[in-house]
């Protein structure tokens, strides 16, 4: 966001760039890494947002101030002061660059207030005297909107089919938009009627491969009736002074009858007749994978099913079948040879 100062009969104009910390440098690195790239998207991405910058409560705010005087003047050595809504100085940053017209400060990183709301701050170049000329104080107001931290709730590893009334386990995670450690935050799981059926606290470590997704393993009992039920998960309690938005996420729980038939799958490559290990077997809602011998077993209640055997670089095998008793299926899969460069690029 760029805010333009009103000239207060001084000869200098102050403006400021406000961003959440870390936004700017990423873009510059990308330019450098890509080197040559089409330029004609430039016009469409260059438009700047004129709205106040939104910052997470307590988050880092990056401020860079520019000052232009008329006539042009080198102000290096002077400092710009940032004042908050009460007029208190929250930081000061020196002018370090002058390109013959524009003076630019070094980046100042300050913390946003902890309470959500809109704050009107001021960047002030104090009155000074240079080369015998008096310069009045110059300043520019700018606004930042401090928002509660957003949270995301993620549910995974929910079994695709659970025998009605049986216990099952799944994972539930929470992530703060500012990567707040979420250890000890509480969660709740509600069933299709809105009744809380599980609650607890998130663990000490983020889920593997994530930066700040703290998680818990949850045990619950499936509905006693067959069907697909909408459950919800939420993270209502943070125990943090920093405000966090609450988020609720829906997920499906499918309760099924007790299986009474066995489908035995043998997956082979159609051309070589060699077994395909690791092929995905989906007999909705049941899922499994073939073993090293290309074999898989799926237990299902009697009924009509569409069977897919796929993956491992093969075109999906599909069969529609009525399962009334145990049955075996030999799935011959066509290898999906991706076109080579020689196929097309000649």
């Amino acid at each position: 966001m760029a805010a333009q100062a009103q000239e207060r009969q001084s000869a200098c104009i102050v403006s400021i760039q406000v961003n959440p910390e870390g936004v700017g440098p990423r873009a510059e690195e990308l330019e450098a890494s890509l080197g040559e790239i089409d330029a004609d998207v430039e016009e469409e991405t260059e438009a700047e947002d004129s709205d106040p910058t939104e910052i997470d409560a307590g988050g880092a705010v990056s401020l860079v101030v520019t000052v232009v005087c008329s006539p042009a003047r080198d102000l290096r050595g002077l400092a710009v002061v940032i004042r908050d809504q009460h007029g208190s100085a929250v930081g000061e940053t020196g002018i370090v660059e002058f390109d013959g017209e524009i003076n630019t400060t070094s980046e100042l990183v300050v913390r946003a207030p902890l309470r959500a709301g809109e704050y009107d701050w001021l960047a002030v170049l104090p009155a000074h005297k240079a080369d015998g000329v008096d310069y009045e104080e110059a300043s520019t107001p700018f606004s930042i909107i401090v928002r509660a931290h957003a949270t995301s709730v993620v549910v995974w590893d929910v079994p695709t089919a659970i025998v009605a009334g049986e216990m099952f386990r799944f994972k539930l995670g929470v992530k703060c938009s500012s990567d707040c450690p979420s250890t000890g935050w509480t969660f709740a799981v509600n069933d299709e009627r809105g009744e809380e059926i599980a609650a607890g606290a998130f663990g000490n470590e983020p889920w593997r491969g994530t930066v700040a997704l703290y998680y818990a393993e949850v045990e619950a009992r499936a509905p006693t009736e067959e069907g697909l039920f909408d459950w919800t998960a939420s993270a209502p309690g943070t125990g943090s002074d920093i405000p966090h938005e609450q988020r609720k996420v829906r997920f499906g729980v499918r309760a099924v009858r007790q299986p009474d038939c066995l489908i035995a799958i043998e997956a082979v490559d159609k051309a070589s007749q060699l077994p395909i290990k690791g092929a995905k077997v989906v007999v909705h809602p049941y899922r499994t994978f073939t073993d090293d011998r290309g074999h898989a077993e799926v237990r299902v209640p009697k009924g009509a099913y569409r069977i897919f055997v796929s993956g491992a670089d093969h075109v999906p095998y599909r069969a529609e079948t009525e399962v009334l008793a145990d049955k075996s299926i030999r799935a011959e899969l066509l290898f999906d040879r991706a076109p080579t460069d020689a196929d097309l690029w000649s």
Partner: protein
Amino acid sequence: MTKRSKTEPAAQTSDKRLTRREFFTQGAAAGVGVVALGGAGVASAGEPLPTTESIEWDYEADVVIAGGGCAGLTAAIRARDLGASVLVVDQNFDLGGRMLHSGSFLSLGGGDAIQQRDMRGDSDPEGFITVPPVEAPEELDDNVELLFTDMTDWSIVDPKAQSPYRYNEREQNRAWAENCPPTREFLMQNYVRFSRISGTHGGGGMSRARAPFCFFKLGDVTDIRAGTITAEDAGVADPERTSALAPVKMQDASEVVGPNAVMNGVALARPLEFSAREKGVQFMLARHFDELVREQPSAGRILGIKAHYSPRMNPNSGERLESYWQNGNIDERRDVVHIRARKAVILASGGHAGNPQVRSMFYPAMREPAFPTSGFALQGPHGQDASALMAGLKVGANLSGMQQNLSYSTTFHIATRLGTRDAYTDMFPGHPTFPFRGSTGLNVGNAGFEELIAVNQVGKRFFNEVRFPLRPGLSAYPGGPGQAVPNAGVEHKPLDWRNCRREWIRESYNYDHGLDAALAMNEGSTPPNYYSGPLWAIFDEDAVERTGWELRFPYVNEDNGYFFTADTIGDLARKIYQGHPFQRVPLSYLEDTVTTWNSYVEGGEDPEFERHLEAPMNPVARPPFYALSIMVIWHDSYGGLRVNGRHQVIDMMGAPIPGLYAGGEAVGGINKHGLGKGHVHGFIAGTNAAAEAAV
């Protein structure tokens, strides 16, 4: 949050030294070298054409060629063989153009020497070929008449219901067919070695097998004359490195040559370059062809060209990229030079696939600059930029076959290589242009698309993912129903109305319009261009575990804007918006799309695109989450300058423009994919240009 522009071109400042070095003359025959002249051409790009009297020529040669790819190099050697001095300018820092990272599947025919060799069952002179012929003798029994018939067969309709041969220019294709056999001989005389013939390339005809690959034998040394290459140079010694000689890994050629043989465009481009340098052709690289100089704006003879300095700098070190071989290079770094052609100029600077403004005349949605032409990292920002087309139009040239971009079924397509902007080839670190792509990409194949959901720039699904990347078959031998031709192999009947009987076309039509759905306007498309924006493959950690996809450098690169990972889908959307150079709008719908998709998986039905009928659906649920770019590639281009059978450029009144020839993708009128077109064009143009009287 402010989204900053990330598309500022890297500074490519010219070297300001104005030293004109003596050009390298090693290997040049006496009396026929390129001449460097006094004076400095100072006209600037964008100015009106200078009057011929005002031009101070900086160099002159008998034949001046714009472009050092398959057409340009062939023309250069041919003209040089016939006694002309030849200067080739190329916008890139190295020679070869697209040919260098091609598959080298070089479809000629008409009874050429390789067809005859394979009919006899002979090997090559060195005995490198140890496998028997792939095709039966009757499949190779070809002649010029049959080839010409194939190239102009009105009855062929492809699986996309397009007619690839019907609109070909007749005189030009007659000349092409007649010159296929001598071009094959010519290439063989210039160190190019051909494998067994195996089928025919798209646009090369339906009646006979006509295409071998070009190969090297792996050996202890790289020796172009001997036909050997080291494993390191071929890019096969290290699974994750290519080389400065071979930008794309050479492929196993055991089925069409024998053990320890490798093939691709390196075995075509490098031998031709080697031969050209050996014979004294001279090169001015990093020199973009800008304009033709004609006696009068639309009349008189073509006198020469204007070209500007176009160096490429390593984006990391800032150093100027240099060609693999140097002999024959003229190190000229002035911003602009004028080069006089005593006999002729040959335009061989490629097509327009790299110029979104030009290609959009065929498909407005492809004005989208997010999608480059294939091999853009190798070719650079000026590759396939329609320079020949634009220069030709300025001097009054006519056009031909412009609609044929739509008549080759894979001209623009969805790449199955994800996570790189340069999604056609698998370049690895080792070639100096790798940094321009930053990642090799991950080729997930068609089957890989069942592991992901594909979303547009606002985060919405737009098509059944498992059909999305599928491509229609090409119209090429051996044909058959898969290529929408009723009879396969030698049973095919050219010029038979039954080939395009309405009932047959209905039966054989086989095109999914996923590409078109991908290019459709969406909530993020804004006037005036209504760009459809980037495309993203979204998947989760389970998909990675299922597939074993290697999400690491060099396959993907978290810093190049084409691969992202995040703890949540919301974070993923924000990272893409912040980090991808062409992501103009937030992926506002992505979280809802994933939530909806997961509900479809739970329910076992995809009511939007009916994916459940064709392949299993997988939830996108288990963190972390991933995004890989999906690229639409505009491969090569069709349509261009109109030429006659001598490859003279024809003006709007139907007359040849004196002193101007063209070939390869710079010309239209031949819906022939790939190298076979360019080499024969170069051979014809080089022959006729050299025969012109010097002025």
